[in-house]
């Protein structure tokens, strides 16, 4: 009986290891390939015999990758800050205040969340054209500055806080903004982390919208620049250069994931679990 148990255990670990390898190995191979020369790249070995920075160098000559990294950081940070602020104020009003139309707004939020983006894609582009926002950072930030999901998350978090906390702060002469950002925010840190991670990653990985509203290479975010580099002729069909660009695009998120793994997983899982 004992023996059968350990055999079964061995099988479970073997299966898990095979699965884990199939998810990790391609990324490790990719990093190795970024340092490989063009004739070494087809090999399945993890690390090239003669590693060099050649692929990275020729990519940097061809596209403003450093600039795009700064653009991505700027756009994702700005979007995330706005989502946190607007999500909190709207979520607070819905959770802790009684006013006419509160339920209606709540249902509108639920409805807009289930509306497919394909219907608003073309008109939103035209709005950007009419507001003269094409080829500006604002075009990448404003359409994502308010998130229905963030509002619902904050609403739920604020509902769980006692009214006494708000009343006490009000007696101390705190205004509504002070209550939200100085009194309540420290009490809902997990929600803040979740919303921040999701909107940062969402903004960082967004590629369809930038492809539509940004034409100026200097303003492109990293995923857009790398995409256009990969499909356009500029990589000269040099696989190593393409892969080097992909590595640079993946690296910031992978490093963040290494440190905040648990928060990432919890946050992403909550998108599916809350409805």
């Amino acid at each position: 009986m004992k023996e059968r148990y350990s055999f079964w255990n061995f099988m479970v670990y073997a299966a898990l290891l095979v699965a884990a390898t199939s998810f990790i190995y391609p990324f490790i191979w990719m990093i190795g390939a970024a340092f490989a020369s063009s004739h070494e790249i087809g090999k399945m070995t993890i690390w090239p015999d003669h590693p060099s920075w050649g692929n990275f160098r020729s990519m940097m000559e061809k596209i403003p990758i450093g600039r795009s990294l700064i653009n991505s950081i700027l756009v994702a940070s700005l979007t995330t800050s706005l989502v946190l602020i607007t999500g909190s104020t709207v979520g607070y009003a819905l959770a802790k205040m009684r006013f006419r139309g509160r339920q209606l707004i709540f249902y509108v939020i639920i409805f807009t969340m289930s509306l497919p983006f394909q219907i608003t894609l073309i008109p939103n582009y035209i709005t950007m054209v009419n507001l003269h926002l094409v080829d500006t950072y604002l075009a990448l930030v404003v359409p994502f500055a308010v998130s229905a999901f963030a509002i619902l998350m904050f609403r739920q978090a604020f509902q769980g806080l006692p009214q006494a906390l708000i009343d006490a702060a009000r007696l101390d002469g705190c205004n509504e903004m002070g209550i939200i950002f100085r009194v309540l925010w420290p009490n809902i840190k997990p929600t803040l982390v979740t919303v921040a991670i999701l909107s940062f990653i969402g903004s960082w990985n967004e590629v369809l919208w930038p492809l539509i509203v940004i034409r100026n290479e200097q303003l492109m975010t990293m995923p857009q620049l790398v995409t256009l580099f990969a499909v356009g002729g500029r990589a000269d069909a040099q696989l190593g250069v393409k892969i080097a660009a992909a590595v640079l695009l993946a690296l910031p998120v992978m490093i963040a994931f290494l440190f905040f793994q648990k928060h990432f997983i919890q946050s992403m899982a909550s998108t599916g679990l809350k409805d």
Partner: protein
Amino acid sequence: MSRGLTIKKTILPYVLVSPYLVFVMIFVVFPVLFCFFLTFHKWNIISPMQFIGVDNYSRLIHDRLFWKAIGNTLKFLLLHIPLQIAVSLFLAQLLNQKIRAISFFRASFFLPVIVSGVVVTILWQQLFGYDSGMINRMLSAIGLPKAGWLVNPDIAIYSIAVMATWKNVGLYVILFLVGLQTVPPQYYEAAKLEGASPWQRFYHITLPMINPTIFLVVVLSTIGGFSLFIEPYIMTGGGPMNQTLSAVLYIYKQAFQYYNMGYSATLGFFYAFLIMTVVILQKRLIEKEE
């Protein structure tokens, strides 16, 4: 003073929700109405709009490429959804016991989820390569024939479905794991005492209990599949022979390659309705089974 205060009190909530109201007017209500308006017009953004009645709609009905794109999406989902559920449920079952290094396994499954789809696509483009791709090299090494993963029109869309499954499966492992942990262990113990086999326990206890999670996975995968864009955009450009053309890629091309704003708005409008209908039907179907 006190009147001023009450006015302030009645206005305040509206001030606080105003960012959402403004946002929803500009980026949801107006675009939906404008999209509907555009469906009756021909417009290339530069020259003035031209009213053309329902021409866009009749063009859509006869647009073989658009229906092909929808067909491609359905083929994609046909493999993607069952594969996604099978693999993620299997891995979640393995993790749902006393496992050492569980956080390592969870994190490794999750890695492709957080990495940009652009990276995953560039990576898999190499894996799927015909001559130098890693998968074909492995097949050759064990004496099997090479496959044209992305160049064979019959299988290209399924190759993309496999890649998409690989990218997303980690998220669904976590969702299923949460679902599996809600099943009370007493149920399994009672069934064991009654002499139920592991398979019977899985079929009669686990499956019904995690039905809501399965529904969630089906809906999320469906929406994801209907939004397929960057993968064919980078990998195949919609080819070979338009077999991997996705509806979003087609809408994008109509709008930003041919500047048919009215027609692409019509496609987007129709397509959004199609997605909502499919999701509602799935919900009905699964609720009925309960």
